[in-house]
């Protein structure tokens, strides 16, 4: 897709150790503009460690981390954000008791006035928030509504709209659908597609292949801290993806065991 140009974000052979525990070993993947790379893995596969490296929470120990072809080493999430990498953490993205517009601009509030009279430009903040949310298909009538009263999907939308507005080139979504019902998950997947249509690179981390499959251009499966496989869209079927996710052969064996147990001595 973006063969000649350097991908927006790329990691090559990245590893992470916590003491003598190998959290991640030799992980490589990339995402280009207008692409969705899905990182799949079961619990304990290393998804959280991986996302923390991408987000700048932990530095990587081995390997290369490239942003637009340039090697980087993030010291903090702020560094990552400055390079246009925005991470939306599952359930840690918004402050429930604060209003929608306050959440939208939290940490980067637009201000007017100087010195001690410097204050938040509330009117502009509310208007911008409304416009940006409208682009995602949400009509926020009451800007002062606490975020906690929004649905789970809408709350993710606030976090995604915020990241896009503040100039994210790469959007990293940490399990955005895991706590949601079927319909709300669909809503969030639509935002993923929209972000891609707007030319962002999206890294979509999930343990649900059914959510990843319809939106992904590239699928990367992690298992026990290692890369199990890397496929382009069309190179792998949904069923195969499900199988790979649960450790491939392990699932076959499990199915076999369960079947034999059920069929076994009554």
């Amino acid at each position, binding site marked *: 897709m973006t063969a000649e140009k350097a991908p927006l974000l790329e990691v090559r052979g990245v590893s992470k150790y916590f003491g003598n525990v190998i959290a991640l070993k030799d992980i490589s993947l990339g995402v280009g503009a207008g692409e969705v790379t899905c990182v799949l893995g079961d619990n304990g596969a290393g998804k959280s460690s991986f996302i923390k490296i991408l987000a700048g929470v932990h530095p990587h120990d081995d390997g290369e981390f490239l942003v637009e072809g340039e090697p980087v080493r993030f010291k903090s999430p702020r560094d990552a954000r400055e390079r246009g990498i925005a991470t939306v953490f599952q359930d840690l993205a918004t402050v429930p*008791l604060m209003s929608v517009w306050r959440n939208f601009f939290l940490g980067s509030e637009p201000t007017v006035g100087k010195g001690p009279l410097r204050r938040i430009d509330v009117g502009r903040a509310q208007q911008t928030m409304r416009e940006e949310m409208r*682009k995602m298909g949400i009509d926020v009538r009451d800007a002062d509504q606490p975020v906690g009263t929004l649905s789970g999907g809408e709350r993710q939308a606030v976090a995604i709209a915020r990241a896009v507005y503040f100039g994210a080139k790469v959007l990293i979504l940490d399990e955005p659908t895991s706590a949601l019902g079927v319909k709300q*998950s669909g809503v969030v997947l639509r935002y993923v597609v929209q972000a891609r249509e707007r030319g962002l690179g999206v890294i979509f981390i999930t343990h649900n292949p059914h959510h990843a499959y319809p939106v992904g251009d590239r699928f990367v499966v992690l298992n026990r801290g290692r890369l199990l496989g890397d496929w382009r869209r069309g190179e792998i079927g949904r069923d195969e993806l499900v199988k790979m996710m649960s450790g491939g052969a392990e699932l076959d064996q499990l199915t076999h065991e369960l079947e034999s147990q059920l069929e076994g001595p009554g």
Partner: protein
Amino acid sequence: MNEASGGGSRAAAVTAPGAPTPEPVADERLANIGLVARLMRRPEVGSLLGALVICAFFWLTTDVFGTLNGIANWTDVASTLGIMAVAVALLMIGGEFDLSAGVMTGTTGLLMGLLTTEWGISMWPAIALTFLFAATVGFLNGYMVMRTKLPSFIVTLATFFVLQGVNLGVTKAITGTVRVAGLGDVPGYDSASKLFSSTFWAPHNFRISVIWWIAIAALATWVLARTRAGNWIFAVGGDANASRNVGVPVARVKIALFMTTAIAAALVGIMIALRLSSVQAGQGVGEEFTYIIAAVVGGCLLTGGYGSAIGASLGALIVGMAFIGIQFSGWNTDWRFLFLGVILLLAVLVNNLVRHRAEGARR
């Protein structure tokens, strides 16, 4: 979760890639946000009603309460309490407690007293040093809480006892008594007491601390509602992790809040010391709970992230009116503790309800 958002039976909601931007859909659940609903979202509604009820009660049942002299009386009590309640409210909105805030009013008063009467420093430099000392203690409180990640309840409880011990020990060691007296003779006393402890409106003698209180409450309200700092205070108390993730300097905000509380305590300590021109070593002990009660009555959640400075001021007003009202009614003033307990319980119950409403869909 999110059952309210509609039937989960429509599995087809998963969109195919390349779907167009959907048309904004008006959410029918947001249809009518009436005035009442808007009011109910404000944290200070409960305390406003409470203040009106208590004011009306004592106004009607006693003779003095409603006179200007009476009002000067209860606004005086409410003012120093209110200054502290506002600072404590900011800290509580930021998700922390300071149990050393009460005893700090004693420590700072004693420090100023000793600096001036024992070590010959004149009033204004002593006041500056006292504020500096308070800021340092506040910083240490905040730094320890952030560094150890222990509950601020425990850390400031320790500070509370340390300061209480120091207050008594140092005062006794230096003066041989449990009080520091004679501030009235210190150079600069007149100008300082004019600013911090004078009265105005001659026959009724309203306290200048009332002006301080109103100014501080107004400033705090503006900070909370209209500045980045205010936004960050709500954020660090509401969800410290989410705030950190969007780049809010959580530790800096919380440490600043501890320092604000300590500086407010110094202001009140200085006011009381100048007013009486002497300081008791036991000054302020136990007051920290009254501050917290005033803040909670004013709508602050004990869990942080919600509350207001106006609410805390109204809470302080309720406490002030009740203390003086009980006195005017000729009842035994010990009943005021029972009153504090009852309004605290009522306020917490109301706040819980508000919180559930505000967090609505979350759980």
